[in-house]
């Protein structure tokens, strides 16, 4: 099995606010360069239930499917099938846990797996992913502050 990508970080807010920010206000913070349309003003919608769609709606009303909700468990977490900019048959799986920490802080653990389905990238992924993801965020936090 190909190891999932894992990333985790802490945010200084309670889990319910973190969950709501992730699912109801993704339009405000999701990097526009990682949408399908790359359009400013695109709306990102998580339909709040298992089987709900995740999609992007441009200001012109065009919609692009990103995935479907599998598990909906506010404020503890959610999981979804993820096929942004690809065929739903090539969906990978994203699981996000919002873990309550002392001091009104939330630890967010993201696991992005299901790579076995994608034969082409699989072996390189398996070999390269041992280092894990925890080192990814700090340099970016630095960049975002500067």
């Amino acid at each position, binding site marked *: 099995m190909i190891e999932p990508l894992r990333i985790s*970080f802490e945010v200084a807010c309670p889990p319910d*606010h973190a969950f*709501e920010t992730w699912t109801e206000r993704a*339009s405000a*913070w999701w*990097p526009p360069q990682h949408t399908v349309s790359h359009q400013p003003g695109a709306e990102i919608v998580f339909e709040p239930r298992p089987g709900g769609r995740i999609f992007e709606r441009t200001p012109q009303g065009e919609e692009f499917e990103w995935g479907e909700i599998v598990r909906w468990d506010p404020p503890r977490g959610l999981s979804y099938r993820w096929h942004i900019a*690809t065929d739903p048959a090539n969906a990978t799986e994203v699981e996000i846990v919002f873990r309550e920490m002392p001091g009104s802080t939330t630890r967010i653990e993201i696991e992005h797996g299901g790579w076995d389905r994608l034969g*082409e990238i699989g072996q390189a992924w398996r070999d390269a992913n041992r280092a894990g993801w925890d080192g990814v965020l700090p340099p*970016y936090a630095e960049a975002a502050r500067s």
Partner: protein
Amino acid sequence: MKAKRRIADPFDALGNQYRRDIVELLARKPHSVQEIADQLPISRPAVSRHLSVLNRAGLVSDEQVGARRLYRLDEPGAEAARRYLAQVWGNVGVRFKLFAENTRPRKRSRGPRELTALRTAGPRSSRGS
């Protein structure tokens, strides 16, 4: 696509949004130029030019399969794509963190720190002043 002159750093090649899009598409499965052009808002010749850059960076190779020429990620390219995807999630994480920590829940204590711009702004919107 025959010239194998290498660009120093694959990440220079990934400095372009459409080339990153192409790498994301190829990370899923091999594509023809037409299949790529169908999924991106750029022309076939533009796709070919981007593929040429990606090829010189050692990210992408091509092969003739029947009547079609298919482009796929090279093995080292797959590693570059993996790192790229890690960056995507890192970028997502930072923007989420900045936003979550600087807004208040909607249902209670909607204060002056509540951000009102809830639609995607430009790519530089997360930067400080």
